[in-house]
């Protein structure tokens, strides 16, 4: 986070409808950029919350998460490859 101009290597989207707040992603995340929300979702779970920056795109949280669709991991594209925008690539709620 020292170089403000350099974008994060990864991005994280957490579907709070699917998240059951088990916290395994928080435990798994190497840079520790996920936490539990204060707000409850409408099933009464505190859900995982991406802090908004610092994701390395490693995907470990994705593998540790017991809900198959709760987490989507995005990675910064290499120059020249086909692209999607970070905000429009995946439907659902972005953190």
């Amino acid at each position, binding site marked *: 986070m020292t170089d*403000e*101009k*350099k*974008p*994060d290597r*990864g*991005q994280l989207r957490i*579907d709070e*409808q*699917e998240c*059951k*707040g*088990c*916290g*395994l992603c928080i*435990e*798994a995340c*190497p840079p520790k950029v996920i936490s539990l929300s204060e707000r409850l979702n409408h*099933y009464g*779970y505190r859900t995982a919350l991406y802090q*908004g*920056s610092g994701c390395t*795109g490693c*995907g*470990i949280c*994705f*593998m*540790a*998460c*017991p*809900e*198959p*669709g*709760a*987490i*989507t*991991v*995005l*990675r*910064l*594209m290499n120059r020249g*490859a*086909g*692209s*999607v*925008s*970070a*905000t429009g*690539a*995946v439907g659902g709620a972005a953190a």
Partner: protein
Amino acid sequence: MSNQSVAEYEVARSKAKSLYPRYERKEELQHQTHFCPGCGHGIVHKMVAQAIDELGVQDRTIMVGPVGCSVFTYYYFDTGNVQSAHGRAPAVATAIRRSRPESIVISYQGDGDLSAIGSAEILHAANRGENITVIFVNNAIYSMTGGQAAPTTLLGQKSTTTPNGRNAATEGYPLHVSELLSTLQAPAYIERVGLGDNKQIAQASRAIKRALDNQVRGLGFSLIEVLSPCPTIWKMTPVDSQHWVRDVMEKTFPLGVFCDRTKERLAAPAAQSVPAPALDELPGILGVAEEDLPEGNAAAMAKEQEIDLEVRIAGFGGQGVLLLGEMLAEAGLDAGLEVSWLPSYGPEMRSGTSNCHVRLSRQTIDSPLVTAPTVLVAMNEPSLRKFDRSVRSGGWIIYDGDEFPADCAREDVHVLALPFTRIADAMGDKRAANMVMLGAVLERSGVLPQASIDAALRRLIKNPRWVELDERALARGRELFKEALAEA
């Protein structure tokens, strides 16, 4: 955020294509699984689906989910789905894979299911080397039913049915399925993995993909045992459960590859499957094609003669009792008659006494049971004594013995008693005694054309040496009967 908004990202990890986007087979909450928070099943589901995606076999895959928390695989997997009975998934998977060799069959089972009630099915599917992939989720407990002890429950572990902890003296020891199955020669690949930390999870994912790939390549039976957390029943937080897998469970169930024959299987040439024959070839293959059946000699039968021959043949196993009867029935059929042949069956066929019922008639045969024979062929004294009283008045007893027992003699029944076995022995083989006796029966009944008898002999006896001997034996039997009649 402003800096990142110009950067461009691609999806690196997201829900597998092989899982439904929405779980419409669920009653409610169709956007999430039925698993409790922190349950390992969801993780394993994800790994399996990802492997299916990566190997490109979604259309070919059939998930078999039995009973337990694994029961709802069909909610989630966008593949073919077969829900099966408790513990029976390997048997179900066996049959699917055998009949549909292009399919990829995954048996997804829990530890109660696989290691207790389904222990026979998994052992034998593994031992047959079925080309299926088994995912064995071991959480050391019966979760779906509320926390009863499983064969995999750890020593000292409390459950609702081991309230003081599992005690080896009364409940035995945790069952090591992977080690046990690895003693077999057939399995291709068996590995135990865990979900205890990031490293274990990454290895579990690789192992599952490998196990599926083995099936795609036709290498044989693969099983991945996954040590998996059950926070609800263990009464721990999801994170503590995860650590318990690594710190406690793994001590009882060490991780690792227990069996790997994939290299040698890859080197071995795959067995070529024989193509199924065309439908019109089947009657011939089954031996029921009409063009292969003999014409028979019904024309040689005397038309006017009524026939109702009811024969009981009795002796010891190995004396050719059943063959004698079969010859008679075959000859009758060849001559265009209605026939039936009924053996006494079972262990009697292999030892002790043996007998059979034979009927030949022009009419439809009502009962194939011969309770009052017109001819009794008794190949020894015990057999004679068993049936002598049942012979119909005016009937015949043909008996193999030097002397007919005086107390068996009946005024209303004819007897031909000769040492048939000795006679056959003198002709070349005492085992032909049954044919000498049959010759006597045929001479007595006198209705079957010789051509039918020859045809029956050739149909039932393949060895030319025996055909020749039996022909002589039959002729000798006829002579003996005629001689006896002349003497009387």
